[in-house]
Protein backbone atom coordinates (compact mmCIF):
# COMPACT_ATOMS: atom_id res chain seq x y z
CA UNK A 1 0.00 0.00 0.00
CA UNK A 2 1.24 3.46 -0.86
CA UNK A 3 2.23 5.65 2.06
CA UNK A 4 2.00 9.45 2.14
CA UNK A 5 3.17 11.82 4.84
CA UNK A 6 -0.18 13.55 4.61
CA UNK A 7 -3.52 12.62 3.11
CA UNK A 8 -5.97 15.49 2.59
CA UNK A 9 -9.58 14.39 2.14
CA UNK A 10 -11.46 16.94 0.01
CA UNK A 11 -9.93 19.37 -2.49
CA UNK A 12 -12.04 22.45 -1.77
CA UNK A 13 -10.56 25.72 -0.48
CA UNK A 14 -9.72 24.16 2.91
CA UNK A 15 -8.03 21.12 1.36
CA UNK A 16 -5.96 23.11 -1.15
CA UNK A 17 -4.78 25.41 1.64
CA UNK A 18 -3.97 22.47 3.92
CA UNK A 19 -1.79 20.92 1.21
CA UNK A 20 -0.02 24.26 0.75
CA UNK A 21 0.49 24.72 4.51
CA UNK A 22 1.93 21.21 4.87
CA UNK A 23 4.29 21.73 1.93
CA UNK A 24 5.47 25.11 3.25
CA UNK A 25 6.35 23.42 6.52
CA UNK A 26 8.44 20.62 5.18
CA UNK A 27 6.26 17.78 3.90
CA UNK A 28 7.19 16.37 0.50
CA UNK A 29 4.66 13.56 -0.02
CA UNK A 30 1.12 14.92 0.11
CA UNK A 31 -1.96 13.36 -1.47
CA UNK A 32 -5.25 15.25 -1.95
CA UNK A 33 -8.27 13.02 -2.62
CA UNK A 34 -11.25 14.72 -4.30
CA UNK A 35 -14.65 13.22 -5.10
CA UNK A 36 -15.50 15.69 -7.87
CA UNK A 37 -13.81 15.89 -11.28
CA UNK A 38 -12.01 19.13 -10.37
CA UNK A 39 -10.65 21.01 -7.35
CA UNK A 40 -12.43 23.92 -5.65
CA UNK A 41 -15.42 22.30 -3.96
CA UNK A 42 -18.38 24.60 -3.41
CA UNK A 43 -16.49 27.50 -5.03
CA UNK A 44 -17.07 26.01 -8.49
CA UNK A 45 -20.81 26.59 -8.26
CA UNK A 46 -20.54 30.01 -6.55
CA UNK A 47 -20.05 32.03 -9.74
CA UNK A 48 -20.94 35.34 -8.02
CA UNK A 49 -18.21 37.75 -7.00
CA UNK A 50 -17.38 38.18 -3.32
CA UNK A 51 -14.38 35.96 -2.77
CA UNK A 52 -10.85 36.76 -1.77
CA UNK A 53 -10.90 40.42 -0.80
CA UNK A 54 -8.56 39.63 2.13
CA UNK A 55 -6.34 37.10 0.37
CA UNK A 56 -5.96 38.63 -3.10
CA UNK A 57 -7.13 42.21 -2.49
CA UNK A 58 -9.71 41.90 -5.24
CA UNK A 59 -13.21 40.55 -5.41
CA UNK A 60 -13.23 37.35 -7.41
CA UNK A 61 -15.86 34.83 -8.42
CA UNK A 62 -15.72 31.46 -6.65
CA UNK A 63 -14.12 29.60 -9.59
CA UNK A 64 -11.56 32.42 -10.05
CA UNK A 65 -10.64 32.33 -6.36
CA UNK A 66 -10.18 28.55 -6.54
CA UNK A 67 -7.98 28.89 -9.62
CA UNK A 68 -5.84 31.66 -8.11
CA UNK A 69 -5.34 29.79 -4.87
CA UNK A 70 -4.66 26.52 -6.66
CA UNK A 71 -1.96 28.24 -8.75
CA UNK A 72 0.10 28.44 -5.54
CA UNK A 73 0.50 24.65 -5.60
CA UNK A 74 0.08 23.91 -9.31
CA UNK A 75 2.90 21.76 -10.75
CA UNK A 76 4.24 21.23 -7.23
CA UNK A 77 5.77 17.75 -7.31
CA UNK A 78 5.26 17.24 -3.60
CA UNK A 79 1.48 17.56 -3.87
CA UNK A 80 -0.53 15.04 -5.84
CA UNK A 81 -4.28 15.25 -6.55
CA UNK A 82 -6.57 12.38 -7.45
CA UNK A 83 -10.07 13.16 -8.76
CA UNK A 84 -13.35 11.23 -9.05
CA UNK A 85 -12.19 9.52 -5.88
CA UNK A 86 -14.37 9.37 -2.78
CA UNK A 87 -13.03 8.31 0.60
CA UNK A 88 -15.48 5.85 2.11
CA UNK A 89 -13.63 4.85 5.27
CA UNK A 90 -10.73 5.76 7.54
CA UNK A 91 -9.24 2.92 9.54
CA UNK A 92 -5.95 2.99 11.41
CA UNK A 93 -4.69 5.94 9.33
CA UNK A 94 -5.54 4.05 6.16
CA UNK A 95 -8.18 5.46 3.84
CA UNK A 96 -10.36 3.43 1.54
CA UNK A 97 -11.09 5.27 -1.71
CA UNK A 98 -13.76 4.48 -4.25
CA UNK A 99 -12.56 5.24 -7.79
CA UNK A 100 -13.48 4.35 -11.34
CA UNK A 101 -10.84 1.60 -11.15
CA UNK A 102 -12.31 0.15 -7.98
CA UNK A 103 -11.28 0.45 -4.35
CA UNK A 104 -7.83 1.84 -3.51
CA UNK A 105 -6.08 2.14 -0.16
CA UNK A 106 -3.57 4.72 1.02
CA UNK A 107 -1.83 5.12 4.34
CA UNK A 108 -1.04 8.55 5.80
CA UNK A 109 1.25 9.55 8.66
CA UNK A 110 -1.35 12.28 9.18
CA UNK A 111 -4.80 12.99 7.73
CA UNK A 112 -6.50 16.36 7.19
CA UNK A 113 -10.26 16.18 6.89
CA UNK A 114 -11.61 18.98 4.67
CA UNK A 115 -14.83 17.50 3.34
CA UNK A 116 -16.94 20.67 3.62
CA UNK A 117 -20.60 20.66 4.56
CA UNK A 118 -23.96 19.62 3.17
CA UNK A 119 -27.32 21.36 3.12
CA UNK A 120 -30.15 20.56 5.48
CA UNK A 121 -32.71 18.71 3.34
CA UNK A 122 -36.51 19.04 3.31
CA UNK A 123 -36.86 16.05 5.65
CA UNK A 124 -34.89 17.83 8.35
CA UNK A 125 -37.36 20.70 8.69
CA UNK A 126 -40.57 18.66 8.63
CA UNK A 127 -42.12 20.24 5.55
CA UNK A 128 -45.77 19.13 5.41
CA UNK A 129 -48.11 18.47 2.50
CA UNK A 130 -47.93 16.63 -0.81
CA UNK A 131 -44.89 14.83 -2.08
CA UNK A 132 -44.31 16.60 -5.35
CA UNK A 133 -41.50 17.61 -7.63
CA UNK A 134 -40.15 21.11 -7.50
CA UNK A 135 -38.64 21.26 -3.99
CA UNK A 136 -34.87 21.63 -4.05
CA UNK A 137 -32.15 22.73 -1.70
CA UNK A 138 -30.75 26.06 -2.89
CA UNK A 139 -27.29 24.60 -3.44
CA UNK A 140 -28.66 21.85 -5.66
CA UNK A 141 -30.51 24.45 -7.75
CA UNK A 142 -27.26 26.43 -7.88
CA UNK A 143 -25.30 23.46 -9.20
CA UNK A 144 -27.96 22.77 -11.84
CA UNK A 145 -28.04 26.36 -13.03
CA UNK A 146 -24.40 27.39 -12.83
CA UNK A 147 -22.75 24.17 -13.91
CA UNK A 148 -25.39 22.58 -16.16
CA UNK A 149 -27.30 25.64 -17.35
CA UNK A 150 -30.61 24.20 -16.16
CA UNK A 151 -33.18 26.43 -14.44
CA UNK A 152 -35.23 24.39 -11.94
CA UNK A 153 -38.33 26.64 -11.87
CA UNK A 154 -40.12 29.68 -13.30
CA UNK A 155 -42.11 30.89 -10.28
CA UNK A 156 -39.92 30.47 -7.26
CA UNK A 157 -40.39 30.79 -3.53
CA UNK A 158 -37.44 30.53 -1.16
CA UNK A 159 -37.53 29.30 2.43
CA UNK A 160 -34.65 30.51 4.56
CA UNK A 161 -32.62 33.68 4.20
CA UNK A 162 -29.20 32.01 4.20
CA UNK A 163 -26.76 33.41 1.66
CA UNK A 164 -27.18 30.57 -0.83
CA UNK A 165 -30.92 31.29 -1.00
CA UNK A 166 -30.37 35.03 -1.45
CA UNK A 167 -27.73 34.53 -4.13
CA UNK A 168 -30.09 32.15 -5.93
CA UNK A 169 -32.94 34.68 -5.76
CA UNK A 170 -30.85 37.08 -7.84
CA UNK A 171 -29.39 34.42 -10.08
CA UNK A 172 -32.78 32.96 -11.02
CA UNK A 173 -34.26 36.43 -11.53
CA UNK A 174 -31.45 37.28 -13.95
CA UNK A 175 -32.19 34.05 -15.81
CA UNK A 176 -35.81 35.06 -16.26
CA UNK A 177 -37.56 33.34 -13.36
CA UNK A 178 -39.97 35.21 -11.10
CA UNK A 179 -38.91 35.02 -7.46
CA UNK A 180 -42.03 35.69 -5.43
CA UNK A 181 -40.49 35.98 -2.00
CA UNK A 182 -38.16 34.72 0.69
CA UNK A 183 -39.44 33.58 4.09
CA UNK A 184 -37.31 33.56 7.23
CA UNK A 185 -38.42 31.98 10.51
CA UNK A 186 -36.29 34.28 12.65
CA UNK A 187 -37.10 37.98 13.08
CA UNK A 188 -33.73 38.77 11.45
CA UNK A 189 -32.07 37.67 8.24
CA UNK A 190 -29.46 34.94 8.27
CA UNK A 191 -27.67 36.23 5.20
CA UNK A 192 -25.13 39.01 4.79
CA UNK A 193 -26.59 42.51 4.72
CA UNK A 194 -25.07 43.09 1.27
CA UNK A 195 -26.95 40.10 -0.10
CA UNK A 196 -30.28 41.38 1.24
CA UNK A 197 -29.54 44.64 -0.59
CA UNK A 198 -28.15 43.42 -3.91
CA UNK A 199 -30.07 40.14 -4.25
CA UNK A 200 -33.52 41.04 -2.89
CA UNK A 201 -34.03 44.83 -2.66
CA UNK A 202 -32.48 45.46 -6.08
CA UNK A 203 -35.18 43.27 -7.61
CA UNK A 204 -38.03 44.22 -5.25
CA UNK A 205 -38.22 40.68 -3.89
CA UNK A 206 -40.06 40.74 -0.55
CA UNK A 207 -38.45 39.23 2.57
CA UNK A 208 -41.00 37.81 5.00
CA UNK A 209 -39.30 37.82 8.41
CA UNK A 210 -40.93 35.69 11.16
CA UNK A 211 -42.60 33.53 8.52
CA UNK A 212 -42.29 29.94 7.42
CA UNK A 213 -43.73 27.55 4.89
CA UNK A 214 -46.55 25.58 6.53
CA UNK A 215 -47.11 23.10 3.70
CA UNK A 216 -46.57 22.40 0.01
CA UNK A 217 -49.23 21.41 -2.50
CA UNK A 218 -49.24 19.82 -5.95
CA UNK A 219 -50.21 16.62 -7.73
CA UNK A 220 -46.99 15.70 -9.47
CA UNK A 221 -45.34 19.12 -9.72
CA UNK A 222 -45.46 21.80 -7.01
CA UNK A 223 -48.42 24.16 -7.54
CA UNK A 224 -48.51 26.25 -4.39
CA UNK A 225 -47.26 26.67 -0.84
CA UNK A 226 -48.93 27.91 2.32
CA UNK A 227 -46.99 30.67 4.03
CA UNK A 228 -47.62 31.27 7.74
CA UNK A 229 -46.43 33.87 10.26
CA UNK A 230 -44.79 32.92 13.57
CA UNK A 231 -44.75 34.76 16.91
CA UNK A 232 -41.69 35.72 18.96
CA UNK A 233 -41.53 32.17 20.36
CA UNK A 234 -41.39 30.95 16.72
CA UNK A 235 -44.87 29.39 17.13
CA UNK A 236 -47.15 29.43 14.10
CA UNK A 237 -49.97 31.97 14.29
CA UNK A 238 -53.28 30.34 13.25
CA UNK A 239 -55.24 32.41 10.76
CA UNK A 240 -52.16 34.05 9.23
CA UNK A 241 -51.90 31.50 6.42
CA UNK A 242 -51.62 32.70 2.84
CA UNK A 243 -51.53 30.60 -0.30
CA UNK A 244 -48.79 31.40 -2.82
CA UNK A 245 -48.70 29.92 -6.32
CA UNK A 246 -45.29 28.69 -7.39
CA UNK A 247 -43.70 25.79 -9.27
CA UNK A 248 -40.50 25.70 -7.27
CA UNK A 249 -39.51 25.94 -3.61
CA UNK A 250 -35.86 26.39 -2.69
CA UNK A 251 -34.66 25.53 0.79
CA UNK A 252 -31.84 27.55 2.26
CA UNK A 253 -32.25 26.42 5.83
CA UNK A 254 -28.77 25.72 7.03
CA UNK A 255 -25.61 23.79 6.43
CA UNK A 256 -24.32 20.80 8.36
CA UNK A 257 -20.62 19.87 8.50
CA UNK A 258 -19.92 16.66 6.62
CA UNK A 259 -18.39 14.31 9.18
CA UNK A 260 -19.60 10.77 8.56
CA UNK A 261 -16.02 9.58 8.02
CA UNK A 262 -14.76 10.54 11.46
CA UNK A 263 -17.98 9.92 13.37
CA UNK A 264 -17.49 6.27 12.48
CA UNK A 265 -14.02 6.46 14.06
CA UNK A 266 -15.37 7.65 17.38
CA UNK A 267 -13.77 11.11 17.13
CA UNK A 268 -15.19 13.43 19.80
CA UNK A 269 -17.74 15.81 18.27
CA UNK A 270 -19.09 19.19 19.36
CA UNK A 271 -22.89 19.06 19.29
CA UNK A 272 -23.04 22.84 18.70
CA UNK A 273 -20.78 23.08 15.64
CA UNK A 274 -21.57 19.49 14.58
CA UNK A 275 -17.89 19.22 13.73
CA UNK A 276 -14.98 17.65 15.56
CA UNK A 277 -13.60 19.00 18.81
CA UNK A 278 -10.12 20.35 18.07
CA UNK A 279 -7.24 22.06 19.83
CA UNK A 280 -5.30 25.08 18.53
CA UNK A 281 -3.43 22.80 16.10
CA UNK A 282 -6.78 21.71 14.58
CA UNK A 283 -6.06 18.16 15.74
CA UNK A 284 -9.14 16.12 16.65
CA UNK A 285 -9.34 13.72 19.60
CA UNK A 286 -7.84 11.12 17.26
CA UNK A 287 -4.05 11.68 17.20
CA UNK A 288 -2.89 12.49 13.66
CA UNK A 289 -6.32 13.43 12.29
CA UNK A 290 -6.91 17.13 11.72
CA UNK A 291 -10.02 19.02 10.56
CA UNK A 292 -10.51 22.42 8.88
CA UNK A 293 -12.95 24.43 6.78
CA UNK A 294 -16.68 23.80 6.68
CA UNK A 295 -16.27 20.28 7.96
CA UNK A 296 -15.09 21.77 11.26
CA UNK A 297 -17.58 24.66 11.47
CA UNK A 298 -19.59 26.43 8.79
CA UNK A 299 -17.78 29.52 7.52
CA UNK A 300 -19.10 32.57 5.66
CA UNK A 301 -15.79 33.83 4.25
CA UNK A 302 -13.54 31.77 2.06
CA UNK A 303 -10.51 33.79 3.20
CA UNK A 304 -10.97 32.41 6.72
CA UNK A 305 -11.37 28.88 5.32
CA UNK A 306 -8.08 29.21 3.45
CA UNK A 307 -6.31 30.58 6.54
CA UNK A 308 -7.66 27.78 8.69
CA UNK A 309 -6.67 25.16 6.11
CA UNK A 310 -3.15 26.50 5.87
CA UNK A 311 -2.76 26.39 9.63
CA UNK A 312 -4.13 22.85 9.82
CA UNK A 313 -1.66 21.83 7.09
CA UNK A 314 1.20 23.36 9.05
CA UNK A 315 0.08 21.58 12.22
CA UNK A 316 -0.14 18.27 10.36
CA UNK A 317 3.43 18.82 9.11
CA UNK A 318 4.58 19.59 12.67
CA UNK A 319 2.93 16.38 13.84
CA UNK A 320 4.55 14.25 11.15
CA UNK A 321 7.98 15.83 11.74
CA UNK A 322 7.65 15.52 15.53
CA UNK A 323 7.38 19.19 16.35
CA UNK A 324 4.06 18.90 18.17
CA UNK A 325 3.17 21.37 20.91
CA UNK A 326 3.68 20.05 24.42
CA UNK A 327 2.07 20.92 27.71
CA UNK A 328 -1.33 21.14 29.25
CA UNK A 329 -4.32 22.38 27.32
CA UNK A 330 -6.76 25.05 28.41
CA UNK A 331 -10.47 24.40 27.86
CA UNK A 332 -12.77 27.08 26.44
CA UNK A 333 -16.16 27.35 28.14
CA UNK A 334 -18.90 29.31 26.35
CA UNK A 335 -22.07 30.78 27.81
CA UNK A 336 -24.41 33.82 27.70
CA UNK A 337 -24.73 34.47 24.00
CA UNK A 338 -21.63 32.74 22.66
CA UNK A 339 -22.79 29.63 20.86
CA UNK A 340 -19.49 27.87 20.17
CA UNK A 341 -15.74 28.33 20.17
CA UNK A 342 -13.09 27.01 17.78
CA UNK A 343 -10.70 25.69 18.99
CA UNK A 344 -12.43 24.10 21.96
CA UNK A 345 -9.07 23.88 23.76
CA UNK A 346 -5.59 25.33 23.26
CA UNK A 347 -1.97 25.34 24.40
CA UNK A 348 -0.59 28.43 26.08
CA UNK A 349 2.83 29.69 24.99
CA UNK A 350 1.90 31.44 21.75
CA UNK A 351 -0.72 33.85 20.39
CA UNK A 352 -4.01 32.09 19.78
CA UNK A 353 -6.85 32.95 17.43
CA UNK A 354 -10.43 32.10 18.39
CA UNK A 355 -13.43 31.88 16.06
CA UNK A 356 -17.00 31.79 17.25
CA UNK A 357 -20.58 32.81 16.66
CA UNK A 358 -23.18 34.42 18.87
CA UNK A 359 -26.67 32.96 19.22
CA UNK A 360 -28.73 36.11 18.74
CA UNK A 361 -28.50 39.71 17.53
CA UNK A 362 -26.59 42.05 19.87
CA UNK A 363 -26.32 45.83 19.46
CA UNK A 364 -23.46 47.59 21.33
CA UNK A 365 -21.77 44.83 23.31
CA UNK A 366 -18.47 43.32 24.36
CA UNK A 367 -16.98 39.86 24.28
CA UNK A 368 -15.91 39.11 27.82
CA UNK A 369 -13.04 36.64 28.19
CA UNK A 370 -12.14 35.67 31.72
CA UNK A 371 -10.58 33.07 33.97
CA UNK A 372 -8.18 32.98 36.89
CA UNK A 373 -5.46 35.46 35.97
CA UNK A 374 -7.14 36.86 32.86
CA UNK A 375 -9.99 39.31 32.35
CA UNK A 376 -10.47 41.10 29.05
CA UNK A 377 -13.25 42.74 27.10
CA UNK A 378 -13.41 43.24 23.35
CA UNK A 379 -15.91 45.93 22.35
CA UNK A 380 -18.13 45.19 19.33
CA UNK A 381 -20.37 47.70 17.56
CA UNK A 382 -23.06 45.07 16.97
CA UNK A 383 -22.92 41.41 16.09
CA UNK A 384 -25.25 38.93 14.43
CA UNK A 385 -25.29 35.10 14.38
CA UNK A 386 -24.66 35.00 10.64
CA UNK A 387 -21.24 36.64 10.92
CA UNK A 388 -18.38 34.65 12.33
CA UNK A 389 -16.38 36.51 14.94
CA UNK A 390 -12.64 36.41 15.49
CA UNK A 391 -10.63 37.34 18.58
CA UNK A 392 -6.87 36.92 19.09
CA UNK A 393 -5.34 36.56 22.53
CA UNK A 394 -1.67 37.35 22.87
CA UNK A 395 0.88 35.03 24.43
CA UNK A 396 1.37 37.55 27.27
CA UNK A 397 -2.38 37.65 27.95
CA UNK A 398 -2.50 33.89 28.34
CA UNK A 399 0.65 33.44 30.43
CA UNK A 400 -0.92 34.08 33.82
CA UNK A 401 -4.09 32.08 33.12
CA UNK A 402 -4.87 29.17 35.43
CA UNK A 403 -7.62 26.67 34.67
CA UNK A 404 -10.30 27.12 32.07
CA UNK A 405 -11.14 30.17 29.95
CA UNK A 406 -14.70 31.52 29.86
CA UNK A 407 -16.40 33.41 27.03
CA UNK A 408 -19.63 35.42 27.13
CA UNK A 409 -21.34 38.43 25.55
CA UNK A 410 -21.99 41.37 27.89
CA UNK A 411 -24.21 44.36 27.18
CA UNK A 412 -23.93 47.40 29.43
Amino acid sequence: MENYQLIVIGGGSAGIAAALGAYENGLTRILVIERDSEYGGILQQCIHNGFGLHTFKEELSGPAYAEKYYSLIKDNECIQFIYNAAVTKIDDMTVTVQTEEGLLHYHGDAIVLSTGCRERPAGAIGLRGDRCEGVYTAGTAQTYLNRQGYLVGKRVFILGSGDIGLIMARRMTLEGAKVIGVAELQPYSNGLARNIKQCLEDFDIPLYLSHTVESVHGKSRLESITLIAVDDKLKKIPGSEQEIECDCLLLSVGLIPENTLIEDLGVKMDRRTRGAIVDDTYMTSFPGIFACGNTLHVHDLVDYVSQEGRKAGKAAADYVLHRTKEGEKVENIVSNGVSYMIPQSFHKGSDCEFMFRVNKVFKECAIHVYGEGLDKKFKKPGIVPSEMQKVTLKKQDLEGLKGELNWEVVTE
Partner: protein
Amino acid sequence: MNLICISCPRGCHLTVEKVGNEVKVTGNSCPRGVVYATNELIDPKRTLTTTVKIDSKKAVRLPVISSAPLPKDRVMDVMKELKGFEVKAPVRLGDVLVKDVLGLGSDIVASKTIEE
Protein backbone atom coordinates in the same frame (compact mmCIF):
# COMPACT_ATOMS: atom_id res chain seq x y z
CA MET B 1 -30.02 58.42 3.88
CA ASN B 2 -28.93 54.98 5.14
CA LEU B 3 -27.24 52.52 2.80
CA ILE B 4 -25.52 49.17 3.10
CA CYS B 5 -22.21 49.08 1.33
CA ILE B 6 -22.15 46.09 -0.99
CA SER B 7 -18.54 46.48 -2.06
CA CYS B 8 -17.39 43.61 0.15
CA PRO B 9 -18.95 40.96 2.40
CA ARG B 10 -18.44 43.11 5.49
CA GLY B 11 -21.53 45.15 4.57
CA CYS B 12 -20.91 48.40 6.48
CA HIS B 13 -23.96 50.47 7.36
CA LEU B 14 -23.38 53.84 5.74
CA THR B 15 -25.04 57.15 6.40
CA VAL B 16 -25.04 59.55 3.49
CA GLU B 17 -25.74 63.25 3.87
CA LYS B 18 -25.74 66.01 1.32
CA VAL B 19 -23.93 69.01 2.78
CA GLY B 20 -24.24 71.78 0.17
CA ASN B 21 -22.78 70.32 -2.99
CA GLU B 22 -20.81 67.67 -1.18
CA VAL B 23 -21.81 64.14 -0.27
CA LYS B 24 -20.71 63.23 3.24
CA VAL B 25 -20.39 59.53 4.04
CA THR B 26 -19.98 58.02 7.51
CA GLY B 27 -19.98 54.46 8.81
CA ASN B 28 -17.56 53.13 6.19
CA SER B 29 -14.55 51.03 7.20
CA CYS B 30 -12.57 51.76 4.07
CA PRO B 31 -12.48 54.30 1.21
CA ARG B 32 -14.46 52.01 -1.10
CA GLY B 33 -17.51 52.75 1.02
CA VAL B 34 -17.38 56.44 0.04
CA VAL B 35 -17.09 55.59 -3.66
CA TYR B 36 -20.00 53.18 -3.39
CA ALA B 37 -22.29 55.61 -1.55
CA THR B 38 -21.53 58.47 -3.94
CA ASN B 39 -22.23 56.29 -6.98
CA GLU B 40 -25.35 54.84 -5.43
CA LEU B 41 -26.80 58.35 -5.18
CA ILE B 42 -25.87 59.46 -8.67
CA ASP B 43 -25.57 56.37 -10.86
CA PRO B 44 -26.03 52.99 -9.17
CA LYS B 45 -23.91 50.22 -10.65
CA ARG B 46 -23.69 46.46 -10.23
CA THR B 47 -21.15 43.82 -11.17
CA LEU B 48 -22.77 41.11 -13.28
CA THR B 49 -21.85 37.45 -12.89
CA THR B 50 -23.54 34.80 -15.02
CA THR B 51 -22.62 31.92 -17.30
CA VAL B 52 -22.38 31.50 -21.07
CA LYS B 53 -22.52 28.40 -23.19
CA ILE B 54 -19.19 26.72 -23.87
CA ASP B 55 -18.22 24.06 -26.37
CA SER B 56 -15.87 21.88 -24.33
CA LYS B 57 -15.21 18.29 -23.39
CA LYS B 58 -15.39 19.06 -19.70
CA ALA B 59 -18.14 21.63 -19.19
CA VAL B 60 -21.30 23.08 -20.73
CA ARG B 61 -21.30 26.49 -19.00
CA LEU B 62 -18.49 28.97 -18.49
CA PRO B 63 -18.75 31.44 -15.57
CA VAL B 64 -18.22 35.07 -16.65
CA ILE B 65 -18.00 38.44 -14.91
CA SER B 66 -18.26 42.08 -16.01
CA SER B 67 -14.84 43.74 -15.81
CA ALA B 68 -16.40 46.90 -14.37
CA PRO B 69 -19.79 47.42 -12.71
CA LEU B 70 -22.67 48.05 -15.15
CA PRO B 71 -25.43 50.62 -14.76
CA LYS B 72 -27.98 48.85 -12.57
CA ASP B 73 -30.89 49.36 -14.96
CA ARG B 74 -28.93 47.91 -17.92
CA VAL B 75 -27.99 44.60 -16.29
CA MET B 76 -31.02 42.82 -17.77
CA ASP B 77 -30.14 44.10 -21.25
CA VAL B 78 -26.69 42.58 -20.93
CA MET B 79 -28.24 39.28 -19.81
CA LYS B 80 -30.32 39.32 -23.02
CA GLU B 81 -27.26 40.12 -25.10
CA LEU B 82 -25.44 37.09 -23.67
CA LYS B 83 -28.34 34.69 -24.17
CA GLY B 84 -27.27 33.10 -27.47
CA PHE B 85 -23.58 33.73 -26.94
CA GLU B 86 -21.26 30.73 -27.17
CA VAL B 87 -17.52 30.27 -26.76
CA LYS B 88 -15.22 27.40 -27.59
CA ALA B 89 -12.60 25.93 -25.28
CA PRO B 90 -9.80 26.64 -24.52
CA VAL B 91 -10.68 29.74 -22.55
CA ARG B 92 -8.44 31.21 -19.88
CA LEU B 93 -9.31 33.07 -16.68
CA GLY B 94 -9.40 36.77 -17.58
CA ASP B 95 -9.94 36.31 -21.34
CA VAL B 96 -12.13 39.10 -22.75
CA LEU B 97 -15.12 37.45 -24.44
CA VAL B 98 -17.21 40.54 -25.27
CA LYS B 99 -15.44 43.87 -25.54
CA ASP B 100 -17.34 46.94 -24.27
CA VAL B 101 -20.66 45.13 -23.99
CA LEU B 102 -23.54 47.29 -25.37
CA GLY B 103 -21.15 50.22 -25.26
CA LEU B 104 -21.41 50.37 -21.46
CA GLY B 105 -17.66 50.57 -20.90
CA SER B 106 -17.34 47.11 -19.37
CA ASP B 107 -16.07 43.85 -20.87
CA ILE B 108 -17.46 40.38 -20.31
CA VAL B 109 -14.57 38.30 -19.04
CA ALA B 110 -14.08 34.56 -18.38
CA SER B 111 -13.88 33.87 -14.66
CA LYS B 112 -12.49 30.36 -15.04
CA THR B 113 -9.99 28.50 -17.21
CA ILE B 114 -11.41 25.64 -19.24
CA GLU B 115 -8.57 23.97 -21.12
CA GLU B 116 -10.32 21.62 -23.51
